[in-house]
């Protein structure tokens, strides 16, 4: 409702026109799109791979220990996990300074340059969120009947063949579920760039992501209508992409 009004009066799409014309809007769209693309692809590939590996471990204690380790970072939520990353990303204090320097980053400003941000946010999000998904995928793998797996083995399928032809197709719904949930979270990117922006004293711009822009509209410009317009756009795009995943992934199909 706010998105279509101004001072209580109906103004049609004026707020949207204003938001589109704002110099910060399209860069923010690009930033978020790039981040979501990199993140979804790497999340899907790595989570499925890691879940298959953990599931393939036959030693009982090793399997549960690795599941536990994957899950720990997820317990450290939001802003506090970004604070931890601030230390990792600053070559002056980072325990992995050697790795940063290997990539040619000598200072914090160089590390958080705008081109590196999608990868940095992917790392942060993966580190915090992947563990939970690995556990869920593990559960999905446990659901596959033993008979099916045995039949595959008798037919001569190795671990890779089983994974490709049996396990992944049977996990399809879970994978698309993960994609939908992660897409929703990814388009809402806010805490990570916000904290990095404050920590870098503005080198990471305060208007990096769409949600940050909505925040600036609302609280810096006192323009709640423009802010609502951005949020509504985000909703429409996220809903559209989610629908794609839902239908392609067969999330609501029944056998």
């Amino acid at each position, binding site marked *: 409702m706010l998105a279509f009004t101004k001072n*209580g009066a109906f103004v049609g799409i004026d707020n949207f026109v204003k938001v589109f014309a704002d110099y910060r809007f399209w860069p923010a769209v690009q930033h978020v799109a790039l981040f979501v693309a990199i993140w979804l692809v790497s999340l899907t590939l790595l989570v499925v791979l890691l879940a298959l590996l953990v599931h393939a471990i036959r030693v009982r204690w090793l399997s549960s220990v690795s599941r536990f380790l994957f899950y720990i970072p997820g317990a450290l939520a939001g802003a506090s996990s970004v604070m931890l990353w601030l230390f990792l990303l600053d070559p002056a204090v980072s325990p992995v300074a050697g790795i940063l320097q290997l990539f040619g980053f000598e200072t914090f400003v160089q590390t958080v*340059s705008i081109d590196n941000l999608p990868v940095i946010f992917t790392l942060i999000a993966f580190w915090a969120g992947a563990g939970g998904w690995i556990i869920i995928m593990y559960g999905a793998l446990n659901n596959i009947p033993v008979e099916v797996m045995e039949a595959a083995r008798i037919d001569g399928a190795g671990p890779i063949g089983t994974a490709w032809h049996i396990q992944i197709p049977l996990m399809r719904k879970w994978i698309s579920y993960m994609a939908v949930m992660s897409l929703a979270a990814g388009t809402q990117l806010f805490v990570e760039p916000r904290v990095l922006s404050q920590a870098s004293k*503005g*080198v990471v711009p*305060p208007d990096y992501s769409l949600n940050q822009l909505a925040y600036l509209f609302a*609280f*810096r410009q006192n323009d709640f209508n423009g802010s609502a317009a951005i949020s509504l756009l985000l909703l429409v795009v996220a809903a559209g992409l989610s629908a794609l995943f839902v239908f392609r992934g067969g999330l609501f199909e029944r056998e």
Partner: protein
Amino acid sequence: MAGQHRRSTARILATATAALTVAALAGCAGGSGGVNSDYGFATADQEDGSTITVWVDAAREPVAKAFEEANPDVPISIETYDGNAGGSGSFQTKVALFDQSGEGWPDVVFSTQTNDASWAAKETNGVQAFAAPLNKGYFSDDFLAGFTDGANDPMTVDGSVYGLRNDLAPVVLWYNQKLLDEFGYEIPTTWEEYEAMGEKLAAEHPGYILGSIGDSFVGTYVYYWGAQAPIFALDGNTFSSDFDDPYSVAMTEMLDSMAANGSLVQDSVFSAPFVENYSDKIVAMPGPAWYAGALFQNPDSVNAEPGTFGAADPLYWEGEDEVTGNVGGGVWYASSHSKNLAAVETFLEFATSSEESAELNSGLPAYDEAASTWLDGQAASGFFAGDFKAAVQKASGSVWGGWGFPSFSPETAYAAVVVPALAEGKTIADVVPEWQEQILNEAQVQGYTVE
């Protein structure tokens, strides 16, 4: 069926609109409620003895604590926040949230920026301006007259003073007497001499420096403001940013050449690497008066030996006006929504004019009496070499008046465009068009007419 559904949706929308309209009207009525003639603005119902909430940054926490100790009968709750540093806007965004909820405002806020009056003195979306006007009956004229001339100008809108300046922050030239003696250099007095010294230093003593351009407040307020560069000018509601002005061009060229020969570095003066690598390599460095407490006397920063550093007159262009820049200087605001204005007044008088505040101030207090206390204290301690008092006093009387105070900070554009470009190895001249565009874009979004 569908038609009925649509009708009921329409009805819900209509009801919601009506409810919102009523709420908006009620909000307006509240905002324009009777002006209290004792104060000159519409005050909230006063509750004697209610706790006042004070927001300070880390550097101002000791003053607030000292007040708490000296006035045990005034209930106070001290909260620290980032102090709005670097133009982060946290002060404004938080107040906007309280404006929405209609409650919860802090009673006193300290901000490190000088431009907050541009929004805090205005009614927003029907809610009374956050900052209380202070010279319409609230504070005594005698007290207000005690501030250094012009100190409260940035917070004055149409004759109403909306904030009290904590400290003046004129830029002086800090120098290391021991290194100058060792190298046989003279203290530079003009930008030209400063640049020449950079060249000489780079050739004779590489590794020693004349300052840093990695901080957004240094790049803008120290160098461009001090150079009289009109890159951030406000005239009424018209904003302009002129990078083609001879002063702007000259400063850009000077910074680029000094960054190229290594006499200017890119580390933030507040960063660990700067303190580690350059604490004993600073030969001279233009910077605000508050570097005194924030860098040189700070055990966590440069922590200089007494007698090493001194402050000299600010740098200017040869043969031109002897003016200088200014880096913030914090401001105290009183909330117009406060329920205990008497306690707020006691606090603000303590924080700006008391002797304790002068002792705890990291920079030059804006209140005259406190300023003398501070300067005498600095002179008596013998920490700084040379005539510290004369240099700081000259600087505080010669701040260039052409720099604007719009509702956004020049620091954000510098941080977003110039700092990363320097880190990539580009020069400032390379990104001047981009930088100027960013400044003008920000001005436009904030509703200024851009020239």
